[in-house]
């Protein structure tokens, strides 16, 4: 296992599209780093750069301290799981698993033993003589994973490995992946567009947009202290409420004035916030429905979505015409469409962002 270091790496495609901009990234030994972002943010390109399937336009890539920037994929000793799985369709599961070892001229007896061991660990030992076409989606996914694991490489690169599975299987496999990573303790870079996968699997999460890492931190840190408006809106479901507001400073607290409500916040986190226009953010589950006398504001329930454990209520608030305010409430809270409800924001969970740059304001 090894560390991976990207230093000022940029990738500009011949058609002028810049996929990755000046990216510097350190992946520690044994870490599972998740690259997450919307499609087209450059996360898959980062993976292909590390694998050697793309050459960076500038910058350098180090695996285990060795500069591999100009090395072809064959000499990088990393394993990759493709989104499409890319199983060799004309080879059996056994041959798929054995291929890389055969290329490395490992002793056939040894190959056989390792194939058996890997297949048993993934529960595909009864499928060794089948071809990929005869496997279910989950079995293919395991085979693709096995093909990477069997090599015992320096690092694993996983490109949206769960996106082709149906939702039930995806959750199960996600748990297995977490267990697998704990068992192998292998340096892994995991690309996904699913922020929930990112949060549950990652040791650290890098949120990417347009070829730039917007924030790189532990999953809960990204969730609790998003570095900017983009991260705040991308991470967490349902997405954070964001609306324009103005901050008025008083000596020991701040008053946030917005079309939705006006709240006074007195927390050490935002004592250094200056007055002026801001973007105000609060997560849907930090909004409570309360009685009228405790309320910060009120709105008319436009949509009520019971999703099982909780209910998402979309509120139409006077003064905020272009968006609805989302609140997550207990399923037991009776809310009906068109009912007027009163809500209160949790003061210690308020986020403020610069109105122009979108950067988080705070400590």
């Amino acid at each position, binding site marked *: 296992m090894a560390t991976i270091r990207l230093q000022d790496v940029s990738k500009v495609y011949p058609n002028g599209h810049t996929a990755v901009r000046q990216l510097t990234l350190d992946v520690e030994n044994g870490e599972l780093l998740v690259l997450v972002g919307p499609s087209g943010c450059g996360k898959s390109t980062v993976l292909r750069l590390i694998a050697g399937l793309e050459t960076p336009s500038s910058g350098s890539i180090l695996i285990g301290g060795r500069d591999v920037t100009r090395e072809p994929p064959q000499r990088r000793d990393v394993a990759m799981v*493709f989104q499409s799985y890319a199983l060799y369709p004309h080879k059996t599961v056994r041959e798929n698993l054995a291929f890389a070892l055969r290329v490395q001229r490992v002793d056939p007896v040894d190959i056989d033993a390792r194939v058996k061991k890997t297949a048993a660990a993934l529960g595909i030992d009864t499928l060794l003589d089948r071809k990929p076409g005869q496997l279910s989606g989950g079995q293919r996914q395991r085979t693709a994973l096995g093909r990477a694991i069997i090599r015992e490489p320096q690092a694993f690169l996983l490109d949206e490995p769960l996106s082709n599975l149906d939702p039930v299987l995806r959750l199960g496999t996600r748990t297995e992946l977490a267990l697998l990573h704990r068992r192998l303790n292998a340096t892994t870079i995991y690309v996904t567009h699913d922020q929930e996968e990112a949060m549950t699997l990652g040791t650290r999460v890098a949120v990417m947009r347009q070829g730039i890492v917007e924030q790189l931190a532990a999953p809960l840190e990204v969730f609790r202290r998003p570095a900017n408006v983009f991260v705040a809106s991308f991470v967490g479901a349902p997405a954070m409420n964001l609306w324009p507001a103005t901050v008025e400073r008083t000596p020991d607290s701040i008053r946030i004035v917005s079309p939705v409500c006006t709240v006074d916040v007195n927390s050490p986190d935002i004592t250094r916030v200056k007055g002026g226009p801001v973007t105000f953010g609060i997560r849907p589950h930090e909004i409570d429905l309360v009685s009228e006398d405790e309320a910060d504001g009120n709105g008319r329930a436009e949509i009520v979505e019971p999703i099982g454990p909780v209910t998402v209520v979309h509120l139409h608030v006077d003064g905020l015409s272009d968006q609805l305010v989302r609140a997550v409430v207990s399923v037991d809270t009776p809310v009906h469409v068109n009912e007027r409800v009163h809500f209160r924001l949790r003061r210690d969970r308020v986020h403020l962002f610069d109105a122009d740059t979108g950067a988080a304001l705070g400590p």
Partner: protein
Amino acid sequence: MRAVRWTWAAAVFAAAIVLPLCWAVLASVTPEDRLFTITSFVPRGLVLEHYRALFSGRDFWTPIRNSLIVAGATTILSVALGAVSAYALARLAFRGKTPALAFVLAVSMFPQISIVSPLFLLLRELHLLNTYGGLVLPYLTFSMPLAIWLLVGFFRQLPVDLEDAAMVDGASRIRTLWEIVLPLSRPALATTAILTFLYSWNEFLFALSFTLGPERYTVPVAIALFRGQYQVPWGEILAGAVVATTPVAVIVFVAQRRIIAGLTSGAVKG
């Protein structure tokens, strides 16, 4: 109504092709003296004298062997070289790829007759006249473009992920081509091989021009030269034609699905 009309058109078309063929087969087993009577279409007693004459009276095995060698070598070479060239043109990034592909096509556009004389002089200089090499080399000029264009089209529609996976797994380009790309391209390789073989087997102009004696004649040339100064042995000519056509027809019947699949592959995503 429309369908009926098309069916009739197809039937007429098929008849125009099949009838001469049937006639040739029938005539090849009809005694020489009845060949030109009006009732020759009604077989009355089959005779194999033309076939016997073909193989014992003349040495028809030699042209068959020559044709097999020339067409076989052309097929093997053009598929092998074509696959490597096509893979480079389909997958590797290098300057002048599109011009190279256009050039390959342009080469195959020359009318054969216009290059017969220069090729003759060239082969004479190289001492390749009346040799197998003297036929295989010119044949490659028309079979390679066919092979390259068919295979480039097929390689391009193979998923790139498979080759990426093989290279991340440590395999070199050549090994990836050999172990991943070629096994997956079997339909396209078969199509290419069959079309090349058919073309070389039937080729007449080059074979006539670049062979000098019966020991190197290919089947079409041998048949054409059956004709004597005073007589045309129609029975033997037709028997020879049947012998020449049969293996090719068998190949096509057996492989027609593959040929069609190979020719249309890449046309639609599938």
